[in-house]
Structure formats: C-alpha cells, structure tokens
C-alpha cells in the first residue's frame, strides 16, 4: 500500500492543479480480505486492493464531486476537472460555508500489524478451529472472517491536512444444526489478537444447542433483555434516522424540536467518540475535521446531533467532525457510537424478569415507519429464549416487533456494566459499543414459523 508521505504528497501536489476556487481531496486506500464459510466449509475467499480519490470542488457556492480509483496525478487532475465542470453548470448550494480549515486531529492507535499481515492460511486455520469446536458440539458453523487495512488522507485548499492508518478485524459465527436451529455470536476489533475464535464459536454453539425445540409464544408485550448486538442494530438505525444534524434540521429526527427534552430513560446515555479505542476509532471526518466527543442522549435527555460543516453553519455552531463522504452527501453521522454501560451484571437482568424474552440479535430492522416517533419493526433471530422467574427456560420461535424506540428505551430498567463491540452492519470502518439492557413491556406484533 502507498505510504502516508506518498499519499499526502500526491494530494498536496494535486491540489495545486485544481481549476476550482476551492478543492478537497480524500484519498482512501484499502486492502480487504474476507473468508466466508458455510456448514463448516469455506465457500468464498476474497481479497480486494483498491485506491480511491474523491474530489469535491467549489466554484463560488456551486459544488461538484468526482472520483477516480487511479492514484496518478493525471487521473486526479481529470477528476478535479470533471467535478469543476459539474460545479460550473450546477445551481448554488446556499448553505455551503466554504471548505473547513481544521487543526491536525489527535493521533489514535488504530493500526495492528497482526491484522494487516494476516494470511489466507491463518484465516482458514481459524475457520478450521471454529469448525472443530462446532463439531464437538454436534453442529456446523457458517460465518465470515474479515480483515482490512486502510490508509485515509484528507487535504483541502484551506490548508487542512489529515492522515490516518487503521486496521479492523471481524468474525461472525453462526452455528446451526440439521433442523436449521441457529445461534450466533460475533466480535470486532482493531487487532485480530483480540478476537478469540474458539470463545466466539462456543457462544454461538451454546446458543444453538439451547435453541432446539422452540415453542411458539403469542405476540404481545414482553419484558426483554436485548444483548449488545441487538441494541447495536437499533442504534445503527437511530444513527441513520435521527442522530445527524441533517435529519434534525429536516424534521425527520425524533430530536427535531425536542432537544433538551427527556426522550429516553435515565439509564440511557449515547455518545459518539472518534478517538476511543474501545471501539474502532476514526479521528477525523471526510472533510478533515477532527472528531469531537458528542453526547447525543444524556441520561435520557436529547442533547443534540452530530454536525458536518454545512449543517453546522446552518445552525450557527461548529462542525463536530462527522461529515460523510462527499459522493453520497447523506449528511453527518456517527461512526464510533457508544451506549454507556450501567452497573448491572447479566444475571441481575435475568433475575429481574418474571416472564420475558432474551433477544440475541435482530434481523432486517426497518426504522422508516415513523422516524419522528422512532417507530421500528424487525424480527428476532439466532437465539430467542423465554425467561420465567429469572431463568431461561426454553427457546421460542421468532417474533416480529413494532415499537417506538423512544417508548422502549424509556422503559429501560437495567443496563449491564459489560459491553460488546459490533461492527457496523452497513460496512465501513467504525463500530457500535453497547451493553445488554432490560426493557419492560416491549411490543411484539407477529410471529413466524421457525
């Protein structure tokens, strides 16, 4: 991969050739390898080496964007020219405040040599170990082992220059038996050394074995324990529909006109911190602005969204460093999200449930039903269990929920100290770190056949 100095020099020199008034270049150089397995056999094993340059230019307040995946001065010049032609023809973006001039971001330790150098043989051996653990439990495993390394740089004509190297590693294990009964577990980290293949597989296998002979329970309201992955999946959708300033400004977010109000329970604090290595940090955004720690929900009170330069200018505040890639222009969003842990142990949560459900994870959540009420739907999967008198008594068939996440997270009664780190389902480096939570009276509206 290209070195930090070479990438930064390429961007710096290229900026001198831009025909636009202002220019921003993002260099994104990645190498990603992924081993996928099903029924304890590797069925897909891939590697990708790519280098992308995204050019955003401004001619006055007229903007254009173009990208190339050629790391040459000519290709970058051509992209800047294409973007400039686009800008000259386009109507103005009235809110554009100019490209940000930012101080250097904090250094973060986000690179692991072990992850960067992991070989296909090492990944295959890990899958082999997972298969062996599963076989001992009488089941097979499916899943994915992904490792990636990234070199990212941002430079603009306002003098902003940032660079960052990172790695990430992700293992998901789905254990299943001949009848299709399943359990799953996953982990995500900077360093592959922090991913314990056997331990993750054992959790998935134990859940699968505990999930046999599921009974059907009626839809209705149940007390639920959401494990970290389940909460992480909900947070990912809340991030998409509510946590960015664009969603707030456009009246889509539940926080629109409600900042300062109590919207969730006392035990819920949600923040984004791009420098916290508990997750997988990204210390600056795609505009090159250093990330600030932003508390979005504090003890249930809506404190405000994350900003990029455009939305910040609109609200008369400073960018918090959460700008997205210019080619998508989706508005700002969180990439290293945390739900604060509480003081409970997992057993405390169980003990507090007279009759309820333990949810390992959700499937196909959708948070677009009514974004202002944070009304979500989704299915349970891979380990849904009935809790009776503080104990897990049997597996249950999966259920569909329809509920407001404001209502649900206002009913949180306990939060564990221990948190899990999950990668973002929708890809890209970044993570969601969440505890298990006990929610009273969570609303399920439908059932399925398995």
């Amino acid at each position: 991969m290209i070195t930090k100095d070479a990438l930064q020099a390429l961007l710096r020199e290229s900026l001198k050739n831009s025909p636009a008034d202002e220019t921003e270049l993002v260099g994104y150089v990645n190498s990603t390898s992924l081993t996928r397995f099903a029924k304890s056999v590797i069925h897909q094993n891939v590697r990708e080496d790519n280098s992308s340059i995204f050019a955003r230019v401004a001619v006055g307040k007229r903007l254009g964007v173009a990208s190339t995946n050629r790391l040459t001065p000519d290709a970058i010049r051509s992209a800047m020219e294409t973007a400039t032609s686009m800008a000259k023809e386009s109507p103005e973006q009235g809110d554009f405040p100019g490209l940000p001039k930012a101080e250097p971001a904090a250094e973060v330790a986000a690179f692991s040599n072990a992850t960067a150098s992991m070989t296909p043989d090492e990944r295959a051996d890990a899958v082999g170990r997972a298969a062996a653990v599963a076989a001992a439990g009488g089941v097979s495993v499916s899943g994915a082992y992904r490792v990636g390394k990234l070199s990212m740089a941002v430079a603009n004509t306002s003098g902003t220059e940032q660079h960052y190297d990172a790695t990430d590693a992700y293992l998901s294990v789905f254990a299943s038996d001949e009848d299709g009964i399943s359990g799953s577990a996953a982990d995500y980290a900077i360093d592959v050394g922090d991913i314990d293949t056997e331990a993750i597989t054992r959790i998935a296998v134990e859940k699968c074995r505990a999930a046999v002979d599921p009974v059907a329970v009626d839809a209705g309201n149940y007390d639920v324990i959401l494990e970290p992955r389940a909460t992480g999946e909900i947070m990912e959708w809340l991030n998409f529909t509510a946590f960015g300033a664009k969603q707030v400004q456009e009246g889509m977010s539940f926080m629109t006109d409600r900042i300062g109000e109590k919207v969730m329970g006392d035990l819920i604090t949600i923040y984004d911190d791009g420098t916290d290595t508990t997750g997988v940090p990204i210390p600056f955004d795609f505009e090159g602005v250093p990330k600030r720690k932003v508390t979005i929900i504090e003890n249930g009170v809506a404190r405000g969204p994350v900003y990029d330069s455009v939305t910040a200018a609109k609200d008369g505040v400073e960018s918090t460093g959460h700008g997205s890639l210019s080619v998508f222009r989706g508005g700002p969003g969180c990439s290293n999200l945390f739900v604060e842990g509480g003081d409970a142990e997992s057993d405390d949560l169980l003990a507090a449930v007279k009759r309820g459900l333990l949810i390992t994870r959700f499937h196909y959540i959708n948070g677009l039903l009514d974004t202002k009420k944070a009304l979500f739907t989704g299915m349970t999967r891979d380990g849904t269990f009935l809790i009776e008198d503080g104990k897990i008594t049997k597996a249950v068939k999966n259920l569909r929920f329809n509920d407001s996440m404001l209502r649900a997270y206002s009913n949180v009664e306990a939060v564990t100290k221990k948190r899990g780190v999950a990668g973002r389902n929708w890809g890209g480096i970044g993570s969601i770190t969440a505890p298990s939570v006990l929610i009273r009276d969570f609303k399920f509206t439908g059932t399925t056949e398995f």
Partner: protein
Amino acid sequence: MKELLKEAMDALRKKGVDYADARRVRTTTELLVMKNGEMETGSVTESEGFGIRVLDGGAWGFSSSSDTSPSAVAEVAEQALAIAKASGRVGDSRVILDGQEAVVDVYENEVQEDPFSVPLTEKLNILARSCEGMSKAPEVRFATASMMSFRNDKLFVNTEGSDIEQTIIETGGGIAATAMEGGERQTRSYPASFRGDYATSGFEFTRSLDLPGHAEKTGREAVELLRADECPSRNTTLIIGGTQLALQVHESCGHPIELDRVFGTEASYAGTSFLSIDKLGGFRYGSDIVNIVADATSPGGLGSFGYDDEGVPAQRTDIVREGIFSGYLMSRETAPRIGLRSNGTMRADGWSRIPLVRMTNISLLPGQGTLADIIADTEDGIFIDSNKSWSIDQQRLNFQFGCEIAWEIKNGRLGRMLKNPVYTGITPEFWRSCDAIAGEEEWHIWGIPSCGKGEPGQTAHVGHGTSPARFRGVEVGVKK
C-alpha cells in the same frame, strides 16, 4: 488488458487449476440530486479494475486490484490461487461446475440516446422544473428530484475459452415531495419511492418518466396525506399497486429462490430460505393465477444483460407456474447439486467482488383487465402503493411493508385517502390469497438499483415486472 488476462488464464491452466475466470470492469456513475432547486449532489464516480477467480482442488479463491499493470495481473492471479489453496484446508467438500459451452461474443443493450452525451444543463433543467412543480404547494418543505446514469464495460475470459465483452447502459430517476405541518411529516414520490424507476436503456427512458409533468400532483398528494385519516388496522382485501408489488415480489419471491441462499451460504448474514429443495416442483407457493418468471432477456429490464458473470447466456426460467414453485436462480456451482445447469444468474458488483446468485428480472406475469376493473369488482378493501418501509424474516416468511399512501375501497369505488398504511403476512399464505392480477396494459418492469446481498456487501440492479393485484384476507395495520 484482454491479452494480459488471457495470459493469466493460460498460466493458471498450466498450473492445473480446475477452472479460472477473469473480469475487467470499468464503471461510470453519474448521480444528480436537486433539493428545493439547489444542488444536493452532483457527482461522477469512475472505477476500474479486475478480479481473478480460481477453483483449485475443488475450492475457491479470488483476488482483485485496481492496478491493471502486467505485474499486478500476474500477482493477483498468484494471490487468487494461494487463497484457493487456503480455502481447501477446511472441510472436504469439492465444488463441481456444470458444463457450459465457451462463448465468444460482444453484447450491448439498446440505447437511443447516450445519457453521458446529454448536456448537464438539460438534465438539471428537468430536475429544477420538477422541484418547482412540487413546491407549488406551500406545505411542501422538501422537493427532491434525482437521476442516475450508469455505464458498465465488462470483459470476461475464462480457462474454457470464453471471451465476452459487454456494455450495459442504465438510466432513470424520480421525485419526492415531503410536506410538513404541525409536527406531521409525509412524503409522496413518483414514479416509485427511493429514487424512482430505472431501466437498461438510454436517456430516452429518463425522459419518458416525465418527472416535471408529475411534480405538481406529487406535491399535492404529499399535502393531502398530512390531512388524511390514519389507515385502520383490520383484516381486509388488499389491492397492491405495481411499484409496491415489485418490492413484494423482490423480498418474498426473489430472495428465497436464490439457490446459494437455499444451500446456506448466506445463513450467517442475510439468512436462508423457506423454499427448500424438497419443495421444488410440488409446493403451492401461490394461487393458480400466480405465474412468476426470472427473465434476464426482458427488453429494458434493469436485470437484463447478455451474459452473466460466469459467461452463461441470459435466459428465462419459470419460477412459479400456476401457483406451483417451479424453479430457482442458479449458478454453475449450485445447479449441478440438484441435477440442473446454471440458468445464468451470477452477477458481481464491479471488479472487486465475486459473482453471487442474483435476481435478474423476477416478474409476476400479467393477468386480465385493468386496475379499475379490479377496484370495481371489490366491495370492501384498501388500495395501497409506493413503498415506505420493508422487513422480512431470515427465511422470507413473515413480512411487513409500509407504504406511502392508500385509499379505502367501498362498493367498487376508491374512497378516502389513508396515511401510514402497513400490511403484514406469511409469504405462501399471502400469495395463495391472490385472486386477481391486472393485465398486460398495466404491466411494467420496475427497476430497483439497490438490491443488497453478500459479504463484503454487493449491490445489484434488478427488475420486477408487475401489474396491480388483489389479495384476500390480509392483515392491514399493526395490531394494538
């Protein structure tokens, strides 16, 4: 580049691999989004690279790079072989491909007007007039108009002698008006939600959508939705419009017929399928009038092409015939496992991804009559259209869809508009309740450019031919 890739195939053949193929792909995507007359996004994205897939000792390896130099091609071929050998370290099953004829051909879809030659000012003018039309209603706070154009140049060679060049051009667009009043927020779109409708076609398709001509009505309906009654929760007769029915087909038929999914290769991520092998040829999926095909040869369909990314010719396959589940989407690897040959559905998202079994144009064949005829024949029910939310379980049984808009039907006539409609069901029960499908005159292939599958994530462009259809005894709304 072709010679380099052919040399790589020769080198791999000499090393005794079971099979190998290589694809060089160059893509250009133009995205234009205008909101309230201001530019939201104007971007041109270009990507070029190649990928080599190797089957060695019955196990797969794949590597890819944006570096197209001779040394990189040789290196990537070596990496793919090494990765295949690593794959073979786990398990003892061997991949066996079906037999296919080598193909040497050039394919281009029909294009009357190259979208990349249309002046930008002309495209922006269409978007600006669309925003203006929607904004005539003062309650419309956000008037968004967008269009996308894609050019995809692909070169495919393999160790069996195939040599295929394809150029596929796609276009389309859509508009959406969001009205707000007193804390209420409603969006209405045209011709379909989530950026509109797309086709393998030149810019003539985008022009045919006539976005400005539909803008004012779209804005007006968004405002009407603000004041509409909430859709009641009840079990009733449901007539589903073509655009929502396209997504219904996509989620409840298109995904569960992917044979790789049936064999469990997506189990840990997107899930499996209720349409297990034992159901092929005998399972009643829908009522007698339900006929569904996978047809990659449909003119203009967003899932149409000349050859799939294994070099297999595009073709048409019965999926559901007179209600009986009759066929899968298959690859060269999966088809032989049930004694069949690939029906040409393997597609990759660009040069850096391996092909997966993907939907082509999964279409519900037309029935008879018009939507108006079906409504006139319905005593009591709801007509619903334009997707707003979607969710389905991992075996594709329990689904729930929310839509932008609905109308009450009473005594064969459309009545009051209803907002926030949602319906839910179990896939085969739902399709078995289908008792009317509108005819050819209402039938259209809807193009969806955003079908997700696989790890690492891939996005496919797929099509769904539908005409409005009626379903009995459907749960509408969410149980309180």
